[in-house]
């Protein structure tokens, strides 16, 4: 199943000769945390301009895969290539390696910011630091400041948080904080967005807003790797879905219409309370 899923992807065979390499190429990845294998023989590609959904039950290894791809978690086996070059963390010396980390915008699953005296705009502004690579190292030029201000204002507007720009970050609601992290990644003006459950806790109106933002991003040529549980909101956007189970890829292809056939045996799936919820009528689906 694993092999068939991989070779069924037409992009996989073409990467070498193609002029635009896959933005993400993960080959035979193995990651252990605290000595326990969490990811095993994972293959994953994100071609330029595609939106790939990463699905799987709680604990199946989605976040670990995303963190390994970003170099935040070391991997024990396999290889990661980004934008056609082997991934290398700063500090390691490999000239041919991938160093353009600012091209990847990351929205983590957990909000790790607990600063007291920091405004929303300041948090989003750290994303604009990505543009410093073309400035003299460490020198914030006037031009960069002006550019950063525009980029931050635009990103805040895209996620509908312009009115809260001067609010303290810790005073924002959970859903607003998630949208703020999306704005921070957008402020990088990245070529690839890696989002770990970006819509968790976001209300329906703003889910639609963010779907439109991501659709626009993809239309302009950006690629997306997005971890999801509820695929409904972003389904029209998704080109391909990769499903993880117990750290292995069990599906790589079109978005599964019935997740249960791919997410594992029905017995192993969480009790989905099928009769209980739907029995009450369609109102609960909304």
């Amino acid at each position, binding site marked *: 199943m694993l092999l068939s899923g991989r070779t069924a992807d037409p992009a996989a065979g073409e990467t070498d000769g193609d002029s635009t390499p896959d933005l993400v190429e993960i080959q035979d990845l193995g990651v252990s945390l605290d000595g326990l294998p969490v990811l095993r023989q994972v293959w994953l590609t994100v071609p330029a301009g595609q939106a790939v959904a990463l699905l799987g039950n709680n604990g199946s290894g989605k976040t670990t895969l995303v963190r390994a791809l970003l170099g*935040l978690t070391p991997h024990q086996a396999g290889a990661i290539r980004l934008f056609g070059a082997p991934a290398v*963390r700063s500090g390691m010396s490999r000239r041919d390696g991938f160093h353009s980390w600012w091209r990847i915008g990351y929205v983590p699953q957990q909000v790790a910011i607990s600063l007291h005296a920091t*405004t929303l705009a*300041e*948090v989003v502004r750290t994303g604009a630091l990505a543009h410093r690579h073309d400035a003299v190292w460490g020198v*914030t030029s006037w031009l960069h400041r002006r550019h950063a201000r525009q980029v931050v204002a635009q990103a805040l507007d895209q996620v509908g948080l312009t009115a809260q720009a001067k609010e303290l970050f810790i005073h924002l609601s959970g859903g607003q904080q998630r949208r703020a992290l999306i704005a921070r990644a957008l402020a990088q003006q990245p070529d690839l967005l890696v989002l770990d459950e970006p819509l968790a806790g976001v209300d329906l109106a703003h889910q639609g807003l963010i779907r439109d933002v991501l659709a626009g991003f993809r239309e302009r040529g950006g690629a997306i790797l997005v971890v999801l549980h509820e695929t409904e909101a972003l389904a029209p956007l998704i080109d391909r879905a990769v499903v993880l189970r117990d750290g292995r890829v069990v599906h790589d292809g079109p978005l599964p219409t019935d997740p249960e056939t791919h997410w594992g045996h029905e017995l192993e799936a969480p009790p989905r309370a099928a009769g209980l919820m739907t029995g009450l009528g369609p*109102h609960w689906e*909304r």
Partner: protein
Amino acid sequence: MIELLNLAFMRRALVAAALAGLTAPAIGTYIVQRRLSLLGDGLGHVAIAGVGLALATGSAPLPWAVGACVGGAALIELLRQRGRASGDIGLAILFYGGLAAGVLLASLAGQGAGGLQSYLFGSLVTVSPGDLKLVVALAAVVLVVALGWSAPLFAVCADEDYAKTLGLPVKLYNFVIVVLAAVTVATAMRTVGLLLVSALMVVPVAAAQNLCRGFFASLAGAMGLGLVVSLGGVVTSYYADLAPGATIVLLAIAVFVLSWPVSAWTHRRRHRRLDDPDPRPIPHHWAAESHQDHVHGPGCGHPAVEHGDHLDYLHFGHRHVPHGDHHDEH
């Protein structure tokens, strides 16, 4: 006031205090954000070993204090980055080892703990011209780095993982913050004293965070408050014949206490402003589930509630309103 500036030692003391008042809160803003508020205190203990060594060898104490402090800070950060300093034991041994070694070396030099006193709590008459040159040079380095790199240093303090994904040299920046803190502690030794300098790194920052909105505003505010209390403390201690370090720290705490009611007042004012309606509300137009046989209206059997200029009808806990051929959720 003028006669104070005619005294050479007071001029030197004022310059050294002003620089301590600017550098300590500047670096303290990062330290506080990283929840390392007591790091400065520990580094002060390590610097005492350097002073003891200088007393024992009969050389100038300031360069030795800077050396010991920076060395200790580098060691702490290395241990932390290797994940070995998780249980505070290593830090405690380093800090109290530094204090004990300093006292021991001072007593070997025939001075006992009393000889250390001016370094522990500050003293106006001890800033020598040679000291001042070193203090000015080191403070300039601290200020240039702490302000020039403020954006990436803030990014590292705000969210270390995210800073890594931006490709920032996070380890280097963490190292820079700790080493700058060490330099600041050692250079503030003469005016505020090694045991009290940590307060100057934390208290003006806490006060500024009450008064200002945002990280960079707090950074500037903390430096301003630090400058005011340092100069005020030195002048007060000259006229009232008090220990300068203690005066400066108590002034800073007084400012912090005063910042509470001010912050509560501005908070209330702000909230009144925020009660204004949102200028750009999100359009709320979601089609509700369809009702095959039923249009909500007066007498339809569902409870009606007033909502602005129209009525909503409660339907399974949702508020529905008729709109053309369908119902909207409200």
